[in-house]
């Protein structure tokens, strides 16, 4: 099976006055057609920048400096701005984190959904508004026709996130990238949004990349999970393998810090000590070594490469000198 999106050796640098600082250091990722990939990792590990770099939306002074990102046969990193613009929305859709600030406050939601249809697909306004109402219905908004005329501030957070999803779907993209779309929402609403995206993905056969801090939430949506640490992929495996046989010490730490139903109330959950390296101040060896309880001398000397885990699922890959040889047994 050929991948819809295949990122290889992606590096991203921030231009600082003191010189470039590397934030993304050789990421390898692939998303198959119709697959949903969960990306987890601590705040600041480069999840958002990686995804924004695909469509040419990196902030000022931040640049993709190496690697490739093939999407449907073409290298996105080599495409000119105008070609990337045409790709946005129609091939690759985005849903952002904060529904409170990601909608234009002075434009009615119907118009915001219709906007892409009118300007990208050249649809006439009445047809676009008709389609906008359908999309609102699709994302589970009651009396969608009335809601077309609402301003964002008249809707609740969950409603706004549904509107954002409707906007993301308007161009019928082949890949939908959701960047922590539920972080700002109540727990019950979070689950609803996950369900909604799963339904829509199945219905339209889209591929989905879902970025999150929350491993538990993503378990119900993702086919595969990539764990990012300090701008590199440290483990990548089908979702059940990640939960059954977490192999990288960082992944194990993340899973151990999840609460479970059998925990006694008030038990202290284990957390990973220390903080990830600052951009531009990466250790010479494994970036996780300074925080790792299993670290050996080799870990400080060289950077481990992502490699298949012997004896585990063929798609299970991990970047660790110490645990990779354990045959995936936790």
């Amino acid at each position, binding site marked *: 099976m050929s991948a819809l999106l295949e990122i290889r050796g992606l590096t991203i640098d921030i231009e600082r006055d003191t010189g470039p600082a590397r934030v993304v250091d050789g990421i390898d990722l692939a998303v198959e057609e119709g697959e949903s990939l969960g990306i987890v990792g601590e705040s600041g590990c480069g999840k958002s920048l990686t995804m924004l770099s695909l*469509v040419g*939306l990196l*902030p000022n002074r931040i640049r993709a400096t190496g690697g490739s990102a093939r999407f449907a046969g073409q290298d996105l990193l080599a495409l000119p701005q105008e070609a990337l*613009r*045409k*790709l*946005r*929305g*129609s091939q690759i*859709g*985005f849903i*952002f*984190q*904060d529904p409170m*600030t*990601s*909608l*234009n*406050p*002075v*434009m*009615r939601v119907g118009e915001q959904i219709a*906007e*892409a249809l009118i*300007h*990208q697909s050249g649809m006439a306004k009445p047809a676009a508004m008709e389609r906008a109402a359908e999309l609102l219905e699709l994302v*589970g*908004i*009651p009396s969608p026709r009335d809601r077309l*005329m*609402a*301003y964002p*501030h*008249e*809707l*609740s*957070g*969950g*409603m706004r996130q*549904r509107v*954002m999803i409707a*906007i993301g779907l*308007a*161009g019928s993209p082949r890949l939908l990238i959701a960047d922590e779309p539920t972080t700002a929402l*109540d727990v019950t*609403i979070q689950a*609803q949004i996950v*369900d*909604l995206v799963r*339904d829509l993905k199945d219905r339209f056969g889209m591929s989905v990349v879902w970025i999150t801090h929350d491993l538990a939430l993503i378990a119900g949506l993702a086919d595969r999970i990539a764990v990012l640490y300090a701008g590199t992929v440290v483990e990548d495996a089908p979702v059940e393998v990640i939960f059954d046989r977490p192999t990288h010490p960082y992944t194990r730490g993340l899973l151990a810090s999840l609460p479970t139903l059998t925990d006694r109330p008030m038990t202290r959950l284990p957390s990973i000590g220390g903080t990830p390296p600052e951009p531009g101040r990466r250790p010479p060896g494994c970036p996780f070594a300074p925080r790792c309880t299993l670290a050996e001398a080799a870990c400080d000397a060289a950077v481990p490469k992502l490699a298949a885990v012997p004896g585990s699922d063929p798609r299970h890959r991990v970047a660790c000198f110490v645990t990779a040889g354990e045959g995936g047994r936790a």
Partner: protein
Amino acid sequence: MTAGPIITPGDDRPGSLWRDAWRRLRRNRLAVAGLVILALLVLVAAFGPWLTPYDFLSQNLDARNLPPSMAHPFGTDDLGRDVLSRVIYGARTAFLVAVLVTAVALLIGVVLGAIAGFYGGAFDKGLMWVTDMTMSVPQLLLVVVINASLKQPITLWMEARYLETLNPIYRNSAIIDFVLVFGSMALISWPPYARLVRAQVLSIRNRPYVTAARALGLTNRIILTRYVLPNAAGPLIVAVSAGLGTAMVLESAFSFLGIGVNPPTPSWGNMISDGLRVWTNYPHLLLAPAAVLAVVTVAFNFLGDGLNDALNPKGQK
């Protein structure tokens, strides 16, 4: 699948964004007073020719310097012209100049400021340099320079056009006055608008909804005109309200100094200037235009403050 609750703070009808602002404005007594005064003045200016009891030019040498009376509520001037009629025509001049100058300055300021703020680069640097220069030179000096350097060429051009077409409109010196006054005032008035718009655009262009619009593949032009500029409208409306008042005072100041609208076209500024010379004998000639100018200025300030509070409710507390 169930949906989350729909929060409808206050009014859930469309347009409630501006409706809320309007409601806040209406609660502000001073702002409403300012609005009413200005509305009355606009009406008076618009319907001036049908309202004035006398022609503003007709002289009556038998009725010179009369104090206020039933026949002449504001009295008459040294040529026996009705002061009320002249004040009303002065309102026409003041509003015409203020609206045109503000419109031209706003257009220049919005276009240049938006491009500079959105795209940055050399254009932005150049624009900031020009606005710095313009704003650091005293306004009066700048207007005198612009007036002096433009008057001659415009007059010559009008003369040439007249000889060519024999159209009497090119002989009308009031038109030259207006063009010069508008032109020089607009040229000194746009930089603050450009800076305001630029600052607004700079703060808005990285907001999440702008990034979201980019992620939709919208073009820069659409993002700028539909996502960035409309969100800069609030502060701009406040600035325009203040700018109209300032333009009116400027026009009067220039006419007062003899570099604005010239007699016999009535302007509050040249009426004040005439009245000042004789005010010990005929105070009404100074008081009438000065009081009207003061009231209008205060009205604009009240309205501007009210708009500021209404459009930036978060800044209130």
